[in-house]
């Protein structure tokens, strides 16, 4: 029931966000229509960071309390975070092709983002290689905590090093009012989508545990 309400809310917010991205907001004077990728690319990145922050928090809680629920929450959030990271890397690459003339460049922001993707991919590789539940959760929690260190590096990459990536236009008044509102609505829509996917993933994980418990009973 809760999932259905969330689904309806997310769908409505997404429709509003799409309307704003394609109809409401004016095109950027410098880069033209391609700048409209920004309204989904930025929320994807920010919500991926939020997802990994949840992984970080739940991993700490797991190592402290050793409760299974913390591992379920951390791994569910990591999976959604990995999907969002994949999508923001791909959309960034599609934006770069017409604007920079290349699909990819080893720029500090792009490279640190790719490292983030590799870290959380490793998180799942580690999980798939360890069969003992407690050990798997412990190792994954350590990777989940260590991996989070990369996020401040990504955030500061555009100010610490010389980079091709656009600067912090959002906080430096580089956007007109319509652009700011479109970005805010898109961020709200993607936050709702994250909550929806995360909740759904947690439900599926709980089913996996129920199935394993029933299998153990049958033996």
């Amino acid at each position, binding site marked *: 029931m809760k999932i259905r309400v969330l689904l309806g809310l997310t769908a409505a917010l997404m429709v509003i966000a799409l309307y704003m991205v394609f109809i409401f907001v004016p095109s950027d004077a410098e*880069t*033209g*229509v*391609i700048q*409209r*990728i920004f309204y*989904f*690319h930025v929320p*994807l990145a920010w919500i991926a960071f939020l997802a990994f922050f949840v992984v970080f928090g739940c991993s700490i809680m797991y190592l402290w309390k050793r409760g299974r629920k913390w591992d379920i929450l951390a791994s569910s959030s990591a999976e959604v975070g990995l*999907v969002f990271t*994949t*999508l923001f890397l*791909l*959309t960034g690459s*599609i*934006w770069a*092709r*017409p604007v920079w003339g290349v699909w990819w460049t080893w720029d500090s922001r792009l490279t640190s983002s790719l490292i983030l993707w590799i870290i959380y991919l490793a998180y799942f590789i580690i999980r798939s290689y360890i069969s003992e539940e407690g050990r798997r959760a412990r190792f994954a929690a350590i990777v989940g905590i260590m991996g989070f260190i990369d996020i401040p590096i990504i955030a500061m990459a555009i100010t610490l090093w010389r980079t091709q990536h656009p600067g912090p236009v959002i906080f430096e008044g580089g956007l007109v009012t319509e652009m700011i509102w479109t970005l805010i609505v898109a961020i709200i829509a993607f936050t709702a*989508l994250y909550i929806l*996917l995360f909740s*759904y*993933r947690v*439900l*599926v994980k709980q*089913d*996996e545990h*129920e*199935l394993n418990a*029933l*299998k153990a*009973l*049958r033996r």
Partner: protein
Amino acid sequence: MDNLGYLFAAYTVIWVGLFTYILVLAQKQRQLRRDIDWLKEMLKKADQLP
């Protein structure tokens, strides 16, 4: 600048990626529910045996 093709590609990637993930999750949950129901039925039958 006319880059509509790239814009279309970016939004297609996002929606295809998200819908694929949701479909995979939904399929996985359906399969899990089926297995859980089947196992519960088996355990109930085993309990009823003399």
